[in-house]
């Protein structure tokens, strides 16, 4: 029987109403199904660790409650398992939120599974790390270290489902493993059934970025039209026991599923398509084919698998000093020359107002920015209109906050002391996180699942109900 994988979110900061039509469709179909929230990027994990350091009850996905509230009760009632890496740096904290939300549905509790073992920060010094992904940095010292998390595979997630978990909370796992796990649990696929595991991983790869496979991040007016982008439907992946899969989306939603939308997502963040590394299988996409088999239905075929890698990717996050940005606009006649003069003035000021090791970059938005080098090669070589609407942007980085503040304050001072007609200054600065990737031996990682003890919350909620009742 077909298993349905619905995507409820594709990154931290994604639409919090996206899961509603997906769950509605899963209920309508009445087939075995799971709903996946992928909300954990490299940067989000570092931010979560910082939040946890400042507040022991924080450190999980900040939007968790908003994401789950509209769909939790429906999923529990219809046996739709929820899996999410929304535990981030604090899966226990996320379990507590889920437990409270469940208690509010007055269903009398649900089994919440929690994955352990991705956080290896405490064991970092004893583990043999091998460089990966052309990283050239040394491992940071203990004082700069923020986090070290292994990308776990689907096994501990399957373990949680086998314990009867209705909601599975994890920290760092390979994103597509969240989708593979319910398939392995449902179909009973073997851990060396490489072709099926590869198909399941690709179901995850296609679904993990939410709308990116259903017409999101795709529209280019006049070339690639997408209907109803404001109400784009998030993906549902239909998977059969033999690993064949179809990408589709809920009825009555915007967006579209075409061979083109699926192809763009198929290779997203992939390097060698014949060797796409995941914790559970090496995926070979060299013979992959996509075929439109109906409106908003695309079949993906020819996915093959090879034995899983011996080592697991680990991301280490550490303090990277401070980064700041400041911007000022120049518009109308001769705006380009005024923006360029502002840049020159700022550059000269910084030679004597900031230390030489301050790293800076100056863009003129509207002329050359995101495509440019840090040195501004395109700004010098690409022509632009003399009159227009330009925005000078300074970005600065230093180990100490005061120099980043100073640099951005120098841009602010262009208001009164720079060229004519500058306006709309914005400034901001924040701590910077650096990341490096390593590989750890599988045998060094101890991943497992356990059910979260919810009795505490049931008691607490019961007490609150009693208090509320007594007050009336």
């Amino acid at each position: 029987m077909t298993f349905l994988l619905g995507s409820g979110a594709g990154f931290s900061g994604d639409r919090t109403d996206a899961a509603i039509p997906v769950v509605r469709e899963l209920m309508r179909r009445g087939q075995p199904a799971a709903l996946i929230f992928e909300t954990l990027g490299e940067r989000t994990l570092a931010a979560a660790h910082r939040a946890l350091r400042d507040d022991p009850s924080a450190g999980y996905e900040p939007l968790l409650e908003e994401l789950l509230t509209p769909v939790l009760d429906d999923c529990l009632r219809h046996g739709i398992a929820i899996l999410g890496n929304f535990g981030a740096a604090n899966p226990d904290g996320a379990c507590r939120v889920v437990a409270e939300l469940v208690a509010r549905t007055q269903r009398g509790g649900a089994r919440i599974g929690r994955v352990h073992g991705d956080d290896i920060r405490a064991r970092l010094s004893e583990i043999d790390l091998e460089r990966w992904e052309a990283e050239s940095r040394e491992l940071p010292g203990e004082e700069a270290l923020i986090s070290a998390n292994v990308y776990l595979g689907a096994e501990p997630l399957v373990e949680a489902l086998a314990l009867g978990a209705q909601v599975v909370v994890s920290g760092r796992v390979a994103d597509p493993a969240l989708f593979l796990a319910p398939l392995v649990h449902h179909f009973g696929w073997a851990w060396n059934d490489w072709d099926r595991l590869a198909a399941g991983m690709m179901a995850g790869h296609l679904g993990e970025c939410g709308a990116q496979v259903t017409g999101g991040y795709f529209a280019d007016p006049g070339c690639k039209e997408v209907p109803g982008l404001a109400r784009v439907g998030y993906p549902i992946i239909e998977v059969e026991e033999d690993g064949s899969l179809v990408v589709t989306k809920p009825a009555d939603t915007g967006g579209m599923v075409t061979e083109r939308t699926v192809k763009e997502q198929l290779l997203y963040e992939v390097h060698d398509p014949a060797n796409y590394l995941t914790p559970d299988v090496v995926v070979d996409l060299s013979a992959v084919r996509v075929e439109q088999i109906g409106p908003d239905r695309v079949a993906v075929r020819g996915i093959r698998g090879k034995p899983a890698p011996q080592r697991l990717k680990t991301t280490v996050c550490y303090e990277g000093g401070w980064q700041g940005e400041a911007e000022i606009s120049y518009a109308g006649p001769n705006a380009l020359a005024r923006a360029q003069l502002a840049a020159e003035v700022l550059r000269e000021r910084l030679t004597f107002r900031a230390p030489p090791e301050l790293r800076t970059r100056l863009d003129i938005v509207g002329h050359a920015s995101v495509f440019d080098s840090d040195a501004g090669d395109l700004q010098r070589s690409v022509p632009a209109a003399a009159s227009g609407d330009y925005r000078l942007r300074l970005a600065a980085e230093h180990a100490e906050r005061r120099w980043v503040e100073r640099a951005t304050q120098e841009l602010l001072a262009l208001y009164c002391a720079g060229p004519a007609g500058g306006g709309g200054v914005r400034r901001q600065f924040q701590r910077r996180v650096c990341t490096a990737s390593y590989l750890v031996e599988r045998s060094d990682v101890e991943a497992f699942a356990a059910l979260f003890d919810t009795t505490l919350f049931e008691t607490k909620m019961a007490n609150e109900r009693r208090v509320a009742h007594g007050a009336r």
Partner: protein
Amino acid sequence: MAHADVNSAASLRAKHAVALHRLAHARAGDKGDRLNLALFAYEPKHYETLVEAVTEERVLALFAHRGASRVRRYLMPGLAGMNLVIDDVLQGGVNGALNLDGHGKTLSYLLLGMSVTTEDDSL
């Protein structure tokens, strides 16, 4: 009328330059300081043009100003496309770059601005 026919027949055979954007679509993805650009022909008949025009050397030259050190091209004929993997092009990557777009997400359109020659007069 006869002249017009001759002209259009000639232009069918003549190669002319267009932006890659006219015949292909692309998406960028990042991992660390490495960028991948997945590039696909809208029509399978233009796949060979992509293979001819979008070489590792030309892509490296297009991204040279950003410090790109290496380009590897993986052809995907079954998808009428290719995957381009570019090393050291993200100025430090999402956590290290001073660029507004540290992910390099916009760079798919730097590639699509590349000029290619085609015999297809409809482009």
